[in-house]
């Protein structure tokens, strides 16, 4: 009988043969001493090598296990499970802060007027300030828009004609305006005029124009509009225009100091053209204006200059009072450079509220930062 191959013998030894082949090889080995010795010697050889293995100590494997466990990764899915909500919350918080920062008035400090943005409500009118603020707040709390805010928005809802006062008869005359002012000052007059005109149905009949809103200074727009031939003014003023009178009301002429940070102040400019309005019918401040014949852009420009001059005076007074009301109870962060010149945005607010406030501080506040309240500035100014 022919001897099996080495591979067959090894397959037999490895137990990899089928039962039939295994029986055949087994029978052969039983009868062939050479093949039996080959299988036996190979098995002993392999066993010698297999058994020569020397296993490291358990301590070495424990160290290995610790090393491998320490490499266990932080699973990304687990990380995302909490990281995503946190990121979303941060985004919401940042967006909220930016929103509050832009509107300012949403974060109110105790004693701070609620509607600095609108301007009218926070203006200190002797004897009426507290009542106006309370009235404004009451309107907010009940969900009803304050009456003056309605005015600021322009007009009552177009479909709500019942909201228009029927008995108010402001004609835009000098007397009317003065009567609207408790102290009879011209500084109050344009605002009162504008406010009441917006509430007056009778005025609408006299007005042809449009309402435009913007966050920029109404004065600049007024000049441009006047130059273009249409009458407009911020803060409430009037101008003769040679039979074509200009009248405009500004909800709040956004002061330069507030434009950047409190841009939510909507400036409402009512542009109108009155054919037969006399120059002194509207404001006393416009008395200095000379009658101008209609026709040329230059003439309009000249008229607008005088109108804006008057409006600027009254608005500045109103703005200063409004800014002081805004500054009351609020804290300001001020940065002074090496020469003692304040550079922070809050400095512009104080410029509006307390002109000259920095004169007494510049000498002592160079290269420093100061946190100060509006009340403290006010007291300092009083001293």
């Amino acid at each position, binding site marked *: 009988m022919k001897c099996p191959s080495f591979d067959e013998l090894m397959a037999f030894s490895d137990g990899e043969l089928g039962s039939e082949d295994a029986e055949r090889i087994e029978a052969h080995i039983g009868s062939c001493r050479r093949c039996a010795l080959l299988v036996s010697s*190979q098995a002993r050889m392999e066993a010698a090598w297999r*058994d020569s293995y*020397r296993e*490291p100590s358990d301590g070495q494997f424990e160290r290995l*296990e610790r*090393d*491998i466990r320490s490499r*266990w990764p932080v699973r990304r899915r687990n990380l995302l499970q909490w990281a995503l909500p946190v990121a979303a919350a941060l985004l919401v918080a940042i967006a909220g802060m930016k929103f509050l920062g832009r509107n300012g008035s949403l974060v109110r400090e105790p004693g701070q007027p609620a509607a600095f943005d609108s301007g009218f409500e926070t203006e200190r009118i002797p004897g009426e300030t507290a009542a106006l603020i309370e009235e404004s707040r009451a309107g907010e709390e009940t969900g009803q828009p304050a009456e003056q805010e309605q005015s600021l928005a322009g007009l009552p809802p177009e479909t709500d004609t019942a909201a228009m006062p029927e008995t108010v008869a402001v004609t835009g005359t000098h007397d009317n305006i003065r009567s609207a002012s408790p102290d009879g000052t011209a500084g109050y007059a344009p605002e009162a005029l504008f406010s009441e005109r917006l509430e007056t149905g009778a005025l609408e009949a006299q007005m042809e124009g449009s309402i435009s809103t913007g966050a920029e200074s109404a004065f600049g727009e007024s000049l441009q509009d006047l130059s273009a031939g249409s009458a407009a003014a911020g803060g409430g003023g009037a101008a003769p225009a040679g039979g074509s009178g200009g009248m405009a009301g500004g909800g709040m002429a956004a002061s330069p100091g507030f434009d950047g940070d409190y841009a939510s102040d909507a400036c409402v400019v009512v542009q109108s053209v009155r054919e037969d309005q006399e120059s002194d019918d509207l404001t006393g401040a416009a008395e200095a204006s000379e009658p101008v014949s209609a026709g040329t852009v230059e003439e309009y420009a000249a008229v607008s200059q005088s109108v804006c001059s008057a409006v600027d005076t009254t608005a500045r007074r109103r703005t200063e009072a409004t800014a002081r009301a805004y500054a009351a109870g609020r804290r300001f962060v001020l940065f002074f450079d090496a020469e003692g010149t304040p550079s922070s945005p809050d400095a512009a607010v104080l410029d509006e509220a307390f002109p000259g406030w920095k004169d007494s501080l510049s000498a002592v506040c160079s290269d420093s930062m100061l946190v100060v309240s509006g009340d403290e500035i006010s007291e300092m100014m009083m001293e």
Partner: protein
Amino acid sequence: MLLSVLLSALRSDDEEDLDLVRRARDGDRDAFGRLVAKYQKRVFRVARRMCMNDDDAWDVTQEAFIRAMQAMAGFDTGYRFFTWIYRITSNLAINMSQKRKRHGEVQYDEEYGADGLQSIPDDLGERAQAEELARAIEAAVENLSPSLRAVFVLRIDQQLSYSEIASTLGIALGTVMSRLSRARTEVRRSVAHLLEDVK
């Protein structure tokens, strides 16, 4: 009867591995730790046999488990874990051996095999012969190409079946048989002068 008990134990072992693998995939570090504890000695032994020195074997073993850890999410539960970890280990060890061979850096632990010969008879003469034979075989295995050595180690040292070797190394069954035959023949030829003394 004995076969059914062995098969039952194997199935139980595989099911335990599968449970540990699933838990590890879900982020259970302890489950993976248990897999490491269970297989690290066997993995190290394969690495040691293929790399021929302890330092490389430790490196390969650690790297094998780390790679398994990183690839756990993609592990196909249709495979057995030990087959998978053996495959990673074998590939790493083969790469390591090839790299050492290219750079002429093969290090053989000369003292390896001097101890631990448990199956050799107590007779000192026979024991000495066995130790000498083991060292000669170790030297012969070192001279095998990495691919032949891998088959030789998995069959002779780990005593895997041909099909398990094929699965572990990702080669055909016929390739396993041919490589094993070549490896055995080369080793036997290398130690032929000692085999005459093996009784």
